[in-house]
């Protein structure tokens, strides 16, 4: 839910409401528009033509959507904020909801945004040029575990780099940004040394 920049506001929140803190967090983040968290955003049926006119990549199916990343995301800001679809207006990621519910403080939430953006950069660095985050996610999920060829081939290593960094990004997003119903199918095998792995804590 990125917002437009307001030159009258500072990016550092003071003693302000949780809603204002939420806006400040969104202004620093913008991940929901990049395709990192979701593949697409829903459109109401009466928004389809307007969305097409805005140049959004509309999928006019039974449940209309537009594909992410949004072409109107500029940095972390929405360049069509006043005419953005309702889903963009309504959307709140889990981190934003946690912030607004006082379940996390602003600095911790911002730290999670910084970490997620670093993981996103790492994932994008190992994705083929021009590939979007949703495409990279789909490819990583589809990659077979067993090697198709020699385990030490350059192609295999590139695929596994994509799988590693896409998995790391998505597990982090699952943990802190996605609502429970939206979590992705990435498998992680925990390596521990006992029943809980925390005996020495």
């Amino acid at each position, binding site marked *: 839910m990125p917002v437009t920049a307001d030159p009258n506001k500072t990016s550092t929140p003071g003693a302000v409401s949780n809603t204002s803190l939420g806006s400040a967090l969104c202004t620093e983040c913008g991940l929901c528009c990049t395709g990192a968290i979701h593949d697409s955003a829903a459109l109401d049926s009466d928004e389809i033509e307007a969305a097409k006119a805005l140049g959004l990549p509309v999928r006019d199916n039974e449940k209309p959507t537009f594909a992410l990343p949004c072409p109107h995301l500029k940095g972390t800001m929405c360049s069509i904020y006043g005419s953005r679809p309702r889903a963009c207006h309504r959307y709140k990621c889990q981190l934003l909801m946690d912030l607004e519910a006082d379940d996390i403080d602003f600095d911790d939430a911002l730290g999670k945004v910084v*970490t997620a953006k670093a*993981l996103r950069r*790492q994932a994008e660095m190992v994705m083929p040029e021009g590939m979007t985050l949703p495409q990279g996610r789909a490819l990583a999920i589809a*990659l*077979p*575990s*067993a*090697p198709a060829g020699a*385990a*030490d081939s350059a192609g*295999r*290593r590139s695929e*596994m*780099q994509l*799988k*590693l*960094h896409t*998995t*790391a990004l998505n*597990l*982090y997003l699952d943990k802190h940004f996605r609502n429970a119903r939206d979590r992705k199918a*990435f*498998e*992680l*095998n*925990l*390596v*521990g*040394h*006992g029943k809980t*792995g*925390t*005996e*020495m*804590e």
Partner: protein
Amino acid sequence: MTSPMYKRSTDTMFCEVGSDIIALNVDRGRCYGMENVSATVWNLLTEPANLEQICDRLIQIYDVEPQACRSEIEQLMVNMQNEGLVEIVPTGSDAS
């Protein structure tokens, strides 16, 4: 008698997610998560180390009895070896 020297498997790539580690064995194509103690052990293995060296360091970090530490880490190293994340440095090798 000292335990074998362990090192990170050459078939493993990894990344840091906060204080956790996500590792992937290239040959198996599976991702593994390491948290807390297992992440600490992974970070200690920037250089090959044996069980005694690993436990000596862990005892400085965690509130744990040496015998319990050794027992747990011995099992952890077996698990990590079984998953292809670490391997034993062959005797007589330069451990590189």
